[in-house]
């Protein structure tokens, strides 16, 4: 059971609402631009970024391919440090274990953890009478508002200063001005008392180091340090795939994650926690519980397309790169995870038909893949989701009909030619010197904001025969070697297109420019224009 997932309505309905919220659109635009340019700058400064990405990818691939070894090693080593390790098959079990650990405890302070939102921990605690307070500033704000995060890294970007001031004023019982310093100061004071008095501290886990059974947490505010130092009992939730083999590998993740998320060289705090306090320590939790969560992750293992999904390091770079996300924001996706990663992760984890409309909310431009620090081919996965949806018999009837019609027309050159002639005939009356502005039928949505260019005197297809002859004549003057090279190149390309068809194997999405066997354009063959 995952709560807070408002898949009432469709992606389109939620997107429409988002598009009409001017502040949200402005906030999402500003935030994603800031984070994206931060990332670009940090990556350029680091240098050889693509080599780092490839390294990150190889480490994650290796880890997932040997997950039984590394996860087991992590658990054994964590126990050797004195931690208690729990395994939760699904969200319900994870929540149950947490309550079992909590026992009679009354208060919990939480640092940021997407997994705890995925499993609905706060709701489970609330039902059991445990007060669970979010301590990350953005999460604290949306907890007061009773909303879901709208961005993986900056959860409250959809709230403006005034709204935040109103929420915090209600919380404070006095009027606070919409001044960031004052508002943050209030939260600092309020939460300081909570940190010192809470029974339980809950954290997430960015990476779990198998070599020594240690948990690595990246943060900027200091609240994760607080909740893992002050309360007597610490509960850390981790997805089962969040493993790196060694501290040496952690360096690669520490190089990729902060730069990809916010453009920082390193987050202000990077903590490595190896068990509860030692007997001789003066602070730190007396008990450390690590709850390892599956909740659909293991289902991706062995899947040739979706196993790579487990490589994700939850940086949010794909959100900031996605042209769709940048317009509609996170809530339109409806689940815990938004953006391109959410669009694939949510259906993959939950296997619901309801979620598959998210795969349509994409232009398949591949910006997510380009941005991903571990090179997950999200755009290929979205196509795969659509394919599985169609094969399972779940496409919209009109879409299925449209596809059949398209296939019928495009399968014969003569049919295509006839269809073109028909279109020229139909558009003829609407054709003006400065373009076609007709807003009827299929042109209605397109011409709402654009103008179709005017019809040429003769279709290119009809001109081609003459053009081809002219080209050949020109080619006679070309150097024989060059001509032979071009002919070979064209022939190879035709061969390749015949063999491969429309959908490629995962991971083989981007041809480097100048690849002699490639399409010659140096671009992504799956970029639909």
């Amino acid at each position, binding site marked *: 059971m995952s709560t807070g997932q408002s898949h009432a309505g469709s992606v389109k309905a939620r997107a429409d609402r988002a598009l009409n919220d001017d502040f949200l659109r402005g*906030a999402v635009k*500003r935030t994603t631009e800031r984070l994206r340019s931060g990332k670009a700058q940090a990556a350029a400064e680091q240098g*050889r970024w693509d*080599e780092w990405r490839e*390294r990150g990818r190889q480490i994650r691939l*290796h880890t997932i*391919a*040997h*997950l039984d*070894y590394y996860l*087991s090693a992590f658990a054994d*080593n*964590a126990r*050797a440090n*004195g931690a*208690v390790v*729990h395994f939760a098959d699904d969200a319900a079990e994870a929540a149950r274990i947490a309550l079992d650990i909590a*026992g009679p405890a009354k208060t919990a302070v939480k640092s940021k953890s997407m997994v705890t939102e995925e499993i609905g921990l706060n709701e489970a605690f609330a039902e059991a009478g445990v007060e669970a307070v979010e301590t*990350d500033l*953005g999460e604290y*704000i949306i907890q007061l508002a009773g909303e879901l995060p709208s961005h993986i890294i*900056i959860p409250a*970007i959809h*709230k*403006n*200063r005034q709204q*935040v001031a109103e929420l915090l004023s209600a919380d404070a019982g006095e009027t606070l001005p919409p001044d*960031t310093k004052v*508002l943050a100061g209030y939260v*600092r004071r309020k939460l300081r008392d909570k940190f*010192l008095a809470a029974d339980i501290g809950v954290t997430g886990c960015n990476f779990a180091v198998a070599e*020594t059974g240690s948990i690595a947490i990246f943060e*900027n*505010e*200091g609240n994760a*340090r*607080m909740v893992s130092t*002050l309360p007597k009992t610490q509960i850390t939730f981790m997805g089962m795939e969040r493993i790196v083999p*060694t*501290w*040496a*590998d952690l360096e*690669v993740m*520490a190089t990729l994650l902060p730069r990809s998320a916010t453009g920082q*060289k*390193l987050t*202000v*705090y*990077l903590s*490595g926690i*190896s068990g509860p306090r*030692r007997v*001789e*320590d*003066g*602070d*730190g939790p007396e008990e450390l519980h690590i709850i390892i969560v*599956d909740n659909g992750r*293991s289902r991706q293992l*062995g899947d040739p397309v979706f196993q790579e999904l487990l490589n994700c390091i939850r940086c949010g770079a794909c959100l900031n790169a996605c042209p769709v996300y940048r317009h509609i924001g996170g809530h339109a996706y409806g689940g815990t995870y938004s953006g391109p990663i959410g669009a694939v992760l949510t259906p993959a984890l939950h296997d619901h038909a309801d979620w598959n409309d998210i795969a349509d909310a994409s232009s398949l431009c591949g910006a997510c893949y380009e941005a991903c620090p571990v090179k997950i081919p999200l755009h290929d996965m979205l196509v795969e989701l659509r394919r599985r949806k169609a094969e399972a018999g779940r496409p919209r009837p009109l879409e299925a009909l449209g596809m059949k019609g398209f296939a019928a027309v495009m399968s014969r050159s003569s049919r295509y030619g006839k269809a073109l002639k028909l279109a020229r005939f139909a558009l003829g009356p609407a054709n003006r010197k400065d373009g076609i502005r007709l807003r009827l039928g299929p042109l209605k949505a397109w011409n709402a904001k654009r103008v179709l260019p005017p019809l040429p005197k003769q279709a290119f297809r009809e001109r081609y025969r003459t053009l081809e002859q002219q080209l050949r004549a020109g080619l006679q003057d070309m150097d024989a070697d060059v001509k032979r090279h071009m002919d070979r190149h064209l022939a190879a390309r035709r061969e390749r297109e015949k063999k491969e068809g429309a959908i490629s194997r995962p991971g083989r999405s981007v041809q480097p420019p100048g690849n002699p066997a490639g399409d010659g354009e140096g671009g992504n063959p799956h970029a639909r224009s």
Partner: protein
Amino acid sequence: MPDHETRRKRWEAESRARQEAWMDRIAAQLGRPRQRERPHHPFRGAPDFWQAHALPRDEAIRTFTANFRAVGGQVEEAGTLDDALRFIAAEARRLGARRVMAAGCPEFAPLPDLLPDVDVKFWLAGNAGETEANRDAAGDPVATAAAADIGVVMADHAVALTGSIAVTSAPVQGRSVSLLPPVLFAIVPVSRLATRLGEVLAVWDGLEPGRLPAGIHFISGPSRSADIENDLTIGVHGPGAVWAVLVEQFE
């Protein structure tokens, strides 16, 4: 309510049983037998060109300083430990601090004499034993740290390229000292300044599980957040002012 010992035994047994079942299932999904030996890991750690990267000492200091300052941290270069302690004392006076919490390492013993009008307490866990320094040991170390205006710690490591200092939990240095007071001074012996993060992380790959410090903390500047309208705010939960005092001649 079963007693704690019983609960722990139950968790332990469940954990081991589940672990086996999970790993068997993972191996089955991956379509192969269980991987019980450590696999060959050809891409371990940072790329080769990176692992060869090392800055000469002066450049490392300059790089660390630039990076630490770029995020709002402050850096002071001191010749000796004594210079460093005097600097900290002067700053504490300038800030009007009333209470200081320092790690209980012997290097900080001169602090109370340098700050006669200030309440200087040391972090020493209860069973660290009776020593000369204990006379100023804090009764309740966490509460004392929470009430302090300034925290003073000894950095175990520092990294130039990320602009970070690293502190680890120890009987004489609790995590709270570098976390609770709003102002933090960290003494950083230059001999402990590494170029890359990986150089420091490698230390822990070499340790037996159970032998690591419970808390390892890299600190790269003052606490910050941009969660409200992307407006940057400094000093959210952790210290809002952080000083790295580099000591040239230490050990």
